[in-house]
């Protein structure tokens, strides 16, 4: 047993960080993410989530999570998450007819897929302009909207690094395979992105706390500030452990994924919001300005936590899996469902 990245996995993480850093140093933001998407597609990053038999790279969920953590850290717009999540959803939850119909397209540069959230009988699509198709997720369903309508009805997006569009979803075709499995796998990718969000929000807080002086010393010397930062570290590292483990579990012990995915989503969603909020506090008034980036992390955290299934949904599932479910009550069982190796 060895719980850390191997050299190849570290190399993936370093490589995608370089790509994201280069984007940041060009001063690019959400508005140019269309161009960034083409750049990613050219270097093959966008094919990772598509299985090899359909022309993609068939990368493990662990490798994809490493990419998504870096995307979250750089606050890259939603296209990559949406595409990767849509690909794993179709691959894991589509049936024999559905997979060959959509997956080959997702391995091509203009076959971008977007993610959508079922909402009020319709759906909200994330970063859908220019997307060929979208996968709309509900708590227990996933359906493919193909094609994405040309004229989209824009909605105001809480996450300012992502666009949001309202669509009718009546024409979407339900994925007919194991929907839970696809949702769990997509959830791990979303959680990975949220770890990156928390990581960067913490880095910004630590940087600021080391530099900003008040009462004649750096504010990071005050424990009300430094202990806040230490708590951020606890949350970030815990969420990272949970996501790495869930991604590995998806690849190697899929029968354990439902628990691991729920733990990953709950820890990552909580970490992203709480760390971003604490980081804003550490920044003082500057943290409340539009120009300073921390609110973008805060918004991403708030919106990201609510994509796919809610934290409460996962908490309920965890309670069911661990002795508070109907079966446990009937059987009088006390043993947790998940056995430690």
């Amino acid at each position, binding site marked *: 047993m060895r719980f850390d990245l191997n050299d190849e996995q570290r190399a993936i993480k370093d490589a995608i960080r370089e790509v994201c850093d280069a984007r940041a140093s060009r001063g690019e933001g959400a508005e140019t993410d269309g161009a960034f998407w083409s750049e990613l597609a050219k270097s093959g990053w966008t094919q990772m989530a598509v299985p090899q038999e359909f022309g993609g790279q068939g990368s493990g969920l662990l490798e994809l999570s490493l990419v998504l953590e870096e995307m979250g850290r750089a606050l890259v717009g939603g296209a990559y998450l949406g595409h990767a999540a849509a690909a794993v959803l179709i691959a894991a939850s589509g049936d024999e007819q559905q997979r060959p119909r959509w997956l080959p397209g997702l391995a091509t540069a203009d076959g971008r897929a977007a993610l959508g959230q079922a909402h009020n009988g319709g759906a909200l699509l994330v970063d859908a302009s220019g997307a060929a198709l979208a996968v709309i997720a509900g708590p227990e369903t996933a359906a493919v909207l193909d094609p994405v309508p040309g004229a989209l009805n824009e909605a105001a997006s809480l996450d300012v690094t992502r666009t949001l569009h309202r669509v009718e979803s009546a024409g979407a075709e339900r994925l007919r395979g194991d929907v839970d499995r696809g949702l769990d796998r997509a959830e791990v990718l979303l959680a990975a992105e949220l770890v990156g969000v928390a990581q960067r929000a913490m880095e910004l807080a630590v940087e600021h706390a080391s530099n900003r002086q008040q009462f004649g010393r750096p504010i990071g010397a005050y*424990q009300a500030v430094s202990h806040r930062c230490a708590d951020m570290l606890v949350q970030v590292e815990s969420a990272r452990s*949970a996501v790495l483990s869930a991604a590995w579990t998806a690849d190697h012990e899929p029968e354990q994924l439902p628990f691991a995915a729920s733990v990953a989503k*709950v820890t990552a969603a909580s970490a992203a919001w709480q760390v971003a909020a604490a980081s804003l506090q550490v920044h003082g008034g500057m943290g409340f300005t539009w120009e300073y980036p921390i609110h973008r992390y805060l918004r991403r955290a708030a919106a990201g936590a609510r994509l796919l299934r809610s934290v409460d949904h996962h908490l309920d599932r*965890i309670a069911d899996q661990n002795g508070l479910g109907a079966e446990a009550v009937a059987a009088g069982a006390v043993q947790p469902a998940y056995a430690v190796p």
Partner: protein
Amino acid sequence: MDLTLSPEELRFRDEIRAWLDQNHPGPAPQDTEQNFDFRLAWQRTLHEAGYAGIAWPREYGGRGATLVEQAIFNEEMVRARAPAPANILGLIMGGPVVMAHGTDDQKRRFLARILSGDELWCQGFSEPDAGSDLASVRTRAERAEGGWRISGQKVWTSYAHRAKWCMLLARSSDGARYRNLTYFICDMRQDGVTVRPLRQITGESEFNEIFFDGAFVPDENVIGSVDDGWNIALATLMFERPGLGAASALAIRLQLGELAGLIRQNGLDDDASVRRRFARLVVETETIRLNGYRGLARAGEGVPGPEGSIVKIQWASLNQAMTELAFDVQGGAALESDSTWAYRLLRARANSIEGGTSEIQRNILAERVLQLPRLR
């Protein structure tokens, strides 16, 4: 990255499991002293099977287990609800400090009897005026014929009343802070040493105060160099207990199983807020287990890092939160003091104090991991 046990690790786990099946000592007695004797007998059983020094190198009579094997061993002990060995401080601190800094004579003198449990150890660091600020201990060591005379007071010393040896940090010179302390191994069975039990909030007396009144420590019981005790003490505190993260998570997991039963008994398994509080505890337990395993990989790469503080902080607050939830779901039964959960509720309050307070752990993370500026 590989989260499965290798064939050798699986064999090791099966060996421990099979042995525990045959040798489990049965339920532990409630009474503090009887419980300690029970743990002492258990240590002898472990020792006879070669398991007492699971982490110790083979040359010192240990098993020389890898970090992962140590974690497996600790988890199996917890899973079987086996007691901890009585000489735990000797095994995880006294022995390792002698191995790292002791002379060959000291190794011959002390190590075998730590393992067998023939001589028990206690840790005499904290004092009335020196707790978190350990470097300001005031207990004095004065030069004497062939050794040192010790006078002063230690406090909160767990199991001092049963110990033969005390790891003692005392002021040996008037030199600068951090260079004025010496690490002694002091014989507790002598006239100049008086041990008085202190009653804890649970009603038991595990810890004590110790009064030193001219107690003698021969030169051969100085560990490392005179006046270098601070560095040695720091190293002792850093001796990670590999795999304890995962094992303590498992211990909580077992108690969460009991808690689920308690929730059902009280008809609250449909209560949304109870369910979610419970689920958050499960999640936190799982992240401690995972952080513990991730820490093993890092510790394997070199010196144990300050990251151990992450798990220490999490474990203390999780254990406290778990016992609080157990109390909230019990209804009127919570008013009675003789339940297991009442004991756990009270005992858990020590978790954020013993072994370095949670505030001190946060200081360590802030200063040593995040490199934030220090207040001093």
